């Protein structure tokens, strides 16, 4: 077993999907010769040809709109949106067409399209390169939304997303692209739709996805090291649908939950989790569900992003506040 980065694991997962199914196509800006600005598609055009790894014109609506047409023709396109903040030109095609066409067709049409989006901040980028737009898509019926947090999940989840017959928005934690883990390609993956308890604990449940899983885990280790409260960490993995069974089982045990997410909190995935936990586990709760998120501001200039992004200290502060009830 080799150590691979999250980015390389995605690359290997994409390769595997293309080997397994000749209908799988990759399309996006700079995905061919360059291998993508993050090199996630590195070498794929060389091995699978320009017919299957397509450098597209620079227009996101066109990427998703033509992917819909290719899917209608029987193909299984994987679209790369270069950065989170560039998905909005494609928003119309994703929300009005991709999400609704199968429903409108009464089940006659399937659009097995995966839209990969590197998301989140922490890389010192300029504006529009550090956003967390997942709530827009989770809000849209007809789409499924997932986020990987580690190399092993990246490898398996991207293949599962591509194999799914539903349209999936696949978020990749760009600041974690270079983090490494042991990958056993022969392992049996969890369901794409299941959350995972990545660290067991007794006192408070931390809920996170994508880049914030590591922050939550760091907070849990720090708390243990300092003799603080015992924190359970759940990696949601799927944002829509949410695996509420796993979430509720944990919160019913700990009685306290803190959601950690980079996105602004207003009408967010964190809000949805807080609402559902309140509805389903009210009598188990010892305190309100707290949210540690980005602020309800535009993503700031990068010199301020460390203040904007939830970090270990803000998570532990929220843990203290929830325990103070």
């Amino acid at each position, binding site marked *: 077993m080799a150590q691979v980065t999250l980015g390389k694991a995605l690359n290997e997962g994409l390769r595997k999907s293309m080997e397994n199914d000749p209908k799988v196509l990759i399309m996006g800006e700079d995905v061919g010769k360059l291998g993508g600005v993050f090199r996630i598609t590195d070498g794929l055009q060389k091995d699978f040809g320009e017919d299957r790894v397509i450098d597209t014109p620079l227009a996101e609506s066109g990427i998703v*709109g033509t992917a819909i047409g290719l899917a209608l023709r029987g193909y299984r396109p994987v679209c790369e949106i270069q950065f989170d903040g560039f998905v909005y030109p494609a928003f119309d095609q994703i929300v009005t067409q991709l999400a609704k066409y199968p429903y409108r067709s009464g089940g006659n049409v399937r659009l097995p399209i995966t839209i990969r989006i590197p998301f989140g901040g922490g890389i010192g980028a300029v504006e529009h390169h550090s956003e967390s737009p997942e709530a827009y898509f989770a809000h849209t019926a007809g789409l499924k939304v997932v986020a990987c947090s580690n190399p092993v999940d990246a490898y398996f989840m991207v293949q599962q997303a591509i194999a799914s017959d539903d349209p999936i928005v696949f978020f990749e934690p760009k600041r974690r692209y270079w983090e490494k883990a042991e990958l056993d390609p022969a392992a049996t993956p969890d369901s794409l739709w299941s959350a995972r308890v990545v660290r067991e604990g007794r006192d408070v449940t931390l809920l996170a996805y994508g880049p914030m899983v590591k922050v939550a885990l760091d907070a849990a280790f720090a708390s243990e090291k300092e003799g603080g409260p015992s924190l359970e960490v759940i990696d949601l993995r799927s944002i829509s*649908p949410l695996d509420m069974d796993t979430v509720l089982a944990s919160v019913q045990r700990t009685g306290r939950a803190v959601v950690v997410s980079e996105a602004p909190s207003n009408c967010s995935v964190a809000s949805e989790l807080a609402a559902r936990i309140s509805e389903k586990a009210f009598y188990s709760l010892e305190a309100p569900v707290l949210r540690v998120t980005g602020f309800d501001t535009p993503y700031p200039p990068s010199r301020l992003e460390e203040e904007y992004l939830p970090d270990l200290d803000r998570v532990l502060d929220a843990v203290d506040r929830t325990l103070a009830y």
Partner: protein
Amino acid sequence: MSAKAPASSGPAESADTVELVQLLTPEGERVSHPDYDISLTDDEYRELYRDLVLTRRVDTEATALQRQGELGIWASLLGQEAAQVGSGRAMRPSDFAFPTYREHGVALTRGVDPLVLLGLFRGVSNGGWDPFEKNFGLYTIVIGSQTLHATGYAMGIQKDGTDDAVVAYFGDGASSQGDVNEAFIWAAVFNAPIVFFCQNNQWAISEPLERQTRIPLYQRARGFGFPGVRVDGNDVLATLAVTRAALDRAREGSGPTLIEAFTYRMGAHTTSDDPTRYRLSSELEAWKLKDPLERMRAFLGRQQLADKSYFDKLEVEAEELAVRLREGCRSMPNPPTANLFEQVYVEDTPRVAEQRATFQAYLDSFEGSHGGTH
């Protein structure tokens, strides 16, 4: 022979180089064109006229059904029959058409039952037909979106290596949309086997063509790197000939063509619209003289291809179709409540399953107190 386009439509039409392909004059006189010709059998001429008549009858019946409260809304194609029948008949069954929401004539030529078109406008479905059954996409209401789907589909044909082609329908208003312009770029760059068929009916609801463009629309194609041609959209022979040639070009691997079918929306945008607020009735009167059905009827008579008994029989057939639509529409059932939750996903989510179950339980809770289903 080519004819000058009408000069009455504002600055967009002021270019004196504008030419339009015409094979049948408004008076029903057959004329020739150096680049486009068509040779049809007597039966084929009659069939085209039949398509035009049936298409118009579907349209007038649907408008009446809306007035009677049977449809929530209807988007009339009155005046655009020749553009739709000609282009529709140029396609092979294995080609694929991507319509807007006004392509009732194209639907007819593809063999889609006009009754299923009504479902969308009645509100019993957001779609209504299987797009793969007749290779006719679902009606698309967001303006211009379908041109990208059409382009992607054409790219798929190219990958599959068949000689099928695609027709993407849109209008003069849609020509301003980013998606349409992106579709032009994609199709050109990938040399996709597609025909962009723009029905320029002069009006985007209340906005005249001059609000969408400063040059004739077909001339835009040149900037994207493929040919554009303007055809008399009220001439079914010309729209058939020009679309057939463009499809042949696509099949041969020569890439996209933009066809601008110069026509006129003789009715309102939809049954909810009131065109008296924004256009002069004299404009409509002028276009009535170029009616697509009248010129074909005159041609058939002049050429002695059809006599009174043919026209009478066709009238009976059209009326029978209207009766079938009327009765079929009135008896079209509302979808069952459970349909709310169906086909949102191929693989259902726990959330949808939960909402289906709790909503059903809510409905069932009324049974005891109200003595029936909610």
